[in-house]
């Protein structure tokens, strides 16, 4: 199977580092972004199977990332991470078309499982990833 490209967007560096570490251990190719503006730019340049994004960030939010993916009709699956205070917003995101959401603190293996499943979904909708859009 072709490598699974995963994008992680979170303005907290610890989150990016931890997720990269964990997801790479499970065999994913991971790129992290602490600035959502750059993440949006990268989405235009490259295809990702799965985007894992924080909901609340300075600049474009997780919802903006999600809308960006949806509006361009990409098969990319978006997983939203939220603090426990914003579960309602996360539900909204799910209604808009997020693959799933997770509330911090969460168990890393739950996320890994979620990313695996999301990747399967994404691959049904797209050819080999990593090439230009």
């Amino acid at each position, binding site marked *: 199977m072709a490598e699974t490209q995963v994008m992680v967007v979170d303005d*907290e560096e*610890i989150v990016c580092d*931890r*997720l990269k570490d964990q997801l790479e251990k499970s065999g994913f190719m991971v790129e992290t972004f602490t600035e959502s503006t750059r993440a949006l730019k990268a989405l235009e340049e490259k295809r990702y199977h799965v985007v894992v994004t924080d909901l609340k960030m300075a600049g474009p939010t997780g919802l903006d990332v999600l809308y960006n993916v949806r509006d361009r009709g990409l098969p990319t699956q978006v997983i939203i991470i939220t603090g*426990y205070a914003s579960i309602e917003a996360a539900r909204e995101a799910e209604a808009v078309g997020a693959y799933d959401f997770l509330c*911090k*603190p969460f168990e*890393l293996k739950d*996320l890994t499982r979620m990313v695996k499943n999301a990747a399967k979904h994404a691959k049904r909708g797209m050819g080999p990833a990593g090439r230009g859009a």
Partner: protein
Amino acid sequence: MAGWWRRWLGRRWGEDLSTLRSRYERFQHLTDGNNRVLELMADAGDKSGGDYLFDRRYLDSLVDDLEEAVSGVVYDLNAMTDGRYIDLVDAFERVRARVRSVLAPGTEWETDSIIPLSKIDLDDLASVGEKMASLGELRSRLDVGVPDGFVVTASACRRHFRARGLDRVIAARAEELASGTASLVDIVAADLQQSIRRTPIVRSVARSLRKEIGRSERSGWTYAARSSALGEDGEHSFAGQHATLLNVRAEDAVAAYREVLASLFSSEALRYRLDRGLSVAEALMAVGFMAMVPARVSGVILTIDPASPQRDIMVVSAAYGLGPTIVQGTGPTDCFEISRDPSPRVVGRKILQKELALQPRQNGGIERITVETAKQAAACVSESELTELGRMALRIERHAGHYQEIEWAVDQEGRIVILQARALRVSPSGVPADEELVRIRAACPVLLRGRGVIACRGVGAGPVVVVRSTEDMPDFPQGGVLVTTGTSPQYSAMLARATAVVAEMGSSTGHLATVARELRVPMLVDVHEATKVLQPGMEVTVDAEENVVYSGVVRELLRYHLTAQPADADFTEFQLLRRLLRRITPLNLSDPNAENFRARSCSTYHDVIRFAHEMAVRELGEMPGLAAGERKRFVRRLQLSIPMDLDILDIGGGIAPGVEGSSVVPEDVRSVPLSALLAGLSTPGTWRTEPVDMDMKSFLSSATRTAAVGMTDAGAVRPNLAVIAKDYLNLHLLLGYHFNMVDCNLSETPTANYLYFRFVGGVTDITRRSRRARVIAAILQEYEFGVETKGDLVVGRLRNMAKEPLRQRLEMVGRLIGYTRQLDVLMRDEETVRECAQEFVEREQLSVNKTPIVENADGVR
């Protein structure tokens, strides 16, 4: 006895029902708060294991939630007791400040210039550096031989740098490096070291250092001055890049301090920082001054051979004299391979010709000497020393949860001391991968699977040691797997020696589980029949990742676990959480009978709630002091088939709704604990009514006591009273001439459950009464009660137990009350004590099973 009497009969004998009710409600609220704190601690302990992702907001809210819940508990206790525990408020405030300081920006790093090693543990990482923090940890928590000494803190370093303007110099040069070339590094390093060497240590720090050195107990000492840079030994090893000065004389201490500080910017250290993107401007150094060990032999032990971990052996290198021969690789060394058994054996050796050794020089510093010819070709350490060293190393490894690299020495008296210990990184190639692990697990013979609840994750192996009461505790061996029925908080004393814990009862939020998480001892609780399946001496592996106990020692699994990266080492949030937990979860007040069981001894939140709950239970136990008028209005007589008068007072859900009138029948009772007790009391055969013969002496003694009872209170002996609620029972029972008191909360929540049983008095002389007390004590111990006896007083306590086993014990207490009613008269000699206890227990086993047998789906026995 007299004081106790007065308290019983006199206290609050004038309350009305609403006071009583509100006291009970307050108690329920306190219990809820107590459970909430235990849950928060359990949850946070879980998160600190590295399997979760969380952020700073979680830590903030954890601290807020804990604070709110603990302060509620403290408030409730004082509300229940008319403010008799005001000093607990002070204790709470102290703990609160300590906990808050962990998250307060900046302030947590400011400490005294000097901290003695005896006061240091991993909590002090940020002020004494990882190297010294872990040495302090070994000393304070594992009681491993570590030389005495003290640390000049990172705060002192910062104060010195700032006061002398060195911080600006360093920042400026760091700026240059950021834009400069590689060749510049050596120049900058030399300049910075030069600047530090040339600058006199700021007076306040130098004074503190001289004062510490000048303490009388340190007279005649020389020191090893060791670098302990912030970040060193943790994520980044900085191996050999900072200075260690040996045999430093007292008068040279300040100069040595300056020299070690300068090594913060050795070329190697500076390059290392730059390569890894570590800040140069913010580099700080703590320096440890440790008593110089005039070593006969020094060496290094690795608890696994990093070249081939699958061989599962430890490797030791050793040479005569001081350590640098080994760590700097300056001379030939002996090498040994030793097994990783609880009592390690030497399985391989290579002895070299060792002609030279380093030793302390008369006027400070070290010198090279020639080893006696006869000793040159001999092994420099003995088998027994290697065994002892191996044991010590495994203990350190177990505590750290990771393979270790340890510097050690044997002093002139033959004692082994530890000079340094750090995690040994083993390349993942030598250990099984995730998929392989699945296969390994599948191939192991399973003893218990999925029966219990994981209270602390991890893997541990060793021989099963079954502990049934606190009396067994002193015999608990190093490296044993602790198997128990109950989870008494007093058991926590054994956890430092245990490789794993399996308990038949208890919950993951109990006190013992909290301590297990703190010490990182893998633990399973609520494992039915654990003591039946796991027999003493069996070798087992407790896999508290997958909730399985395997037969035998599964080495691959242990290896995998010891190699897994300690996730918390690398991330600030994990470090913060662990520092927080160190101020929240340790339980110092484990034994309610101990001297230190006082409000002012509370130094963690766990202590505070444990103390508060214990005191609240005692308070509630003395509850039924109801005014006479109120009694008439609310108290009802229970119609029993046994000859016993019992009034009941329902304060919430204890009697079926709609039941009216001044008397009730047992069928109307809805109070779970009262029902259980009644079931016991009315078990056929329990209530013997035949008179027991008394000899004259007993009779005379009893006559006197009757008079005494009569004189105590104008109202004479009041009828027996049970205060009940749905989950609660408080019973004061005067039977003949002795009192039984039962106070019990019996609900679906194990951590809210407890049972207190108090028995005192009797008709005969004190010797016979005390004998009866000992019979009762022996029986209670048989059922895992914590027991305390004083003369003819017996107090038995159980807590944190699931509903059904506790209900069965309460029923047993009912039968015990009946059985022992006139037992003191029979207590003619010591032999009868043992016989009677045995008789009761045997009868119990015939009538009911002591522990419930719950068949699991897989039916493994």
